[in-house]
């Protein structure tokens, strides 16, 4: 991040951690994938992006993380223009993307071992995180020996090992069965509430978005069509999924998704 890119405009410094201002993006073919996106994320906020396949959710997530650069507008991270991923960001991909030649512990420690020598404290922290994710007996297993749900847990632990201020998640639970998915959702909410981590979470599952999100943005054809604030009580438990308010939020999100087409 360049020092001259510090935002110096006359506007009050907000408490927003991440701001996307009129962001547009086109891939090399020139077709605009995202148009005029405005999105603010406060510290500790859980923001879900929901939409049909191909609506630009993943592109938006990568722009917010600094993996892609906008063709128009700007992405502001911590009051500075973002041009590359930062060390206080974590990313969980759709697939666990674990390195199959490393064991679970080394996979979790990868974000640290790329930048410094691993010490005892780092190893302890990784073990604690894995324990917290319910992987006590798998420290030295190779990823291939784990189930899909366990691999996702390792990927989340790897993203959390550097105690990031924000976590970007790209449909991380899409390929898991319903029960494992619900368990992971609950664990994720607990850990992030504990560390006050902000989350930008891409999903195409309406129920998942309502259960997890403080805010849910509906994306349609590269635009944010509507943003809904979910005012369900925290902490959320599984029973909430059957409450009338939950269903009301789900229905209005579905309506927003369908109505926009």
């Amino acid at each position: 991040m360049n020092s001259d890119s510090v935002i110096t405009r006359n506007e009050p410094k907000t408490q927003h951690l991440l701001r996307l201002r009129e962001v547009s993006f086109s891939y090399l073919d020139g077709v605009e994938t995202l148009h005029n996106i405005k999105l603010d994320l406060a510290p500790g906020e859980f923001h879900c992006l929901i939409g049909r396949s191909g609506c630009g959710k993943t592109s938006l997530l990568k722009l917010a993380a600094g993996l892609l650069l906008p063709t128009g507008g700007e992405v502001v991270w911590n009051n500075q223009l973002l041009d590359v991923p930062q060390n206080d960001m974590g990313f969980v991909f759709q697939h666990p993307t674990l390195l199959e030649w490393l064991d679970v512990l080394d996979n979790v420690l990868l974000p640290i071992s790329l930048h410094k020598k691993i010490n005892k404290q780092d190893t302890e922290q990784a073990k604690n995180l894995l324990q917290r994710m319910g992987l006590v007996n798998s420290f030295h297993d190779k990823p291939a020996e784990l189930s899909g749900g366990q691999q996702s847990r390792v990927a989340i632990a790897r993203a959390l090992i550097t105690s990031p201020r924000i976590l970007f998640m790209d449909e991380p639970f899409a390929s898991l069965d319903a029960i494992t998915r619900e368990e992971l959702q609950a664990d994720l909410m607990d850990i992030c509430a504990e560390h006050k981590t902000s989350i930008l979470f891409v999903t195409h599952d309406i129920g998942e978005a309502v259960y997890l999100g403080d805010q849910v943005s509906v994306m349609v054809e590269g635009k944010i069509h509507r943003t809904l604030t979910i005012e369900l009580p925290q902490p959320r438990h599984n029973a909430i999924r059957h409450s009338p308010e939950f269903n009301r939020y789900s229905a209005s999100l579905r309506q927003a998704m369908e109505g926009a087409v």
Partner: protein
Amino acid sequence: MKLKSYFWTFAIGVVCLTAWEILVHLLGTSELVMPAPTRIADVLWKSLSNGYLWPHIWQTLLEVFWGILLGGLMGFIGGIALGESKHLRSLLMPYVVLSQVVPKLALAPLFIVWFGFGVLPTVVMTALICFFPLLENTVTSMQQVDPQKLELFRMLRANKWQTLWRLKIPSGLPNIMAGFRVAVVLAWVGAVVGEFIGSSKGLGALIIAAQGSMDTPLMFAVLVVITVLGISSYWIVQIFERRFFYS
């Protein structure tokens, strides 16, 4: 189950050898054309026990070793360079392919002119043969890394070297090792063919010498030695690979 399959593999070999032995005796085939397996075994045993074969085995082993080392290293390093740089790839790949489509046997006389008679032309020939499978597989591996893992490394702010050493090479290793196994097998072809033309010592040179003196049983005995050494080197690489890379 595994033992049973080993038994049948062994049994097929025994049946073939017995049939060979019986046919040779029944048809009264001349030893010059097709010696019986027992005759070959006899010659092999004698030439091993009286020390006649050992200097030749040692010579070929040495050439194979240096050929694999030099050719393999060049293939691996070249593969990384070409895999990493699109520019270099488009610039040099036609020449690499060119170097491989030229029949290497036809190059052997030139190598004798350039490198003299003896170990060096054979090592160069072997290296040239070992070079390509490693280069090809390394280039392919470098380009087949999972794009999400590359993005992960970008997200973790890994530099180019870290991405190479900690992602691209380890993830390409099964492919690179497959190329290495092919190189190890081909190395024996390179060394023996090199010795046919450019050496008076080594197993290839011995086959030519045996042919000159019409000693067909010795030719077969040397062929057996080359086969056993070739298979052994392949197995050693396999064991090494399992022990160190996928344990």
